[in-house]
């Protein structure tokens, strides 16, 4: 079964990011992703960056991925 740790590794391997947290039950996962790549992008574009990086895994192996995408500045301020 897919674990949150595996999803975390997928994200870290496919995307340049500073921090990733993943929780989930094997099918539905929730991720907090901190990346400089999100700077200046709308939330829609930020999520697309992650989806593009993960490719076919989302909707396939990963049934659903909820995400919160933040820039390093926003992360430090929170």
């Amino acid at each position, binding site marked *: 079964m897919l674990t949150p740790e595996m999803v975390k590794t997928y994200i870290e391997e496919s995307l340049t990011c500073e921090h990733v947290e993943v929780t989930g039950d094997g099918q539905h996962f929730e991720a907090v992703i901190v990346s400089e790549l999100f700077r200046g992008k709308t939330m*829609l574009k930020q999520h*697309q960056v992650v989806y*593009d990086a993960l490719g076919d895994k989302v*909707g396939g192996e990963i049934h659903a*991925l909820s995400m919160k995408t933040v820039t390093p500045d926003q992360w430090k301020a929170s």
Partner: protein
Amino acid sequence: MDVKNILEKQIKENCIVLYMKGTPEAPMCGFSASAVQMLEACDVEDVATVNVLENQDIREGIKEFSNWPTIPQLYVNGEFVGGADIMREMYQSGELKRLLNGD
């Protein structure tokens, strides 16, 4: 008519289109159910919903069309707004209601 043309027509002819799994009365996925609830909570009545489980071509086609791999997907005034996460953020901030009511 190919899938892309069908999607373009649906999105053009309806101000608000929700692509979902199941129907508003019987949603087949928690994320689709919450999308419907958020639209209802915004007091919008004129929502066109498309059940992607009824048509595999639409189900795959919309993912490619939006460059978005999951369902539900919300379109407003011909533009892709986002999936369940984005709808929730926009709902909580009040932005979704403003967008849907044309403010």
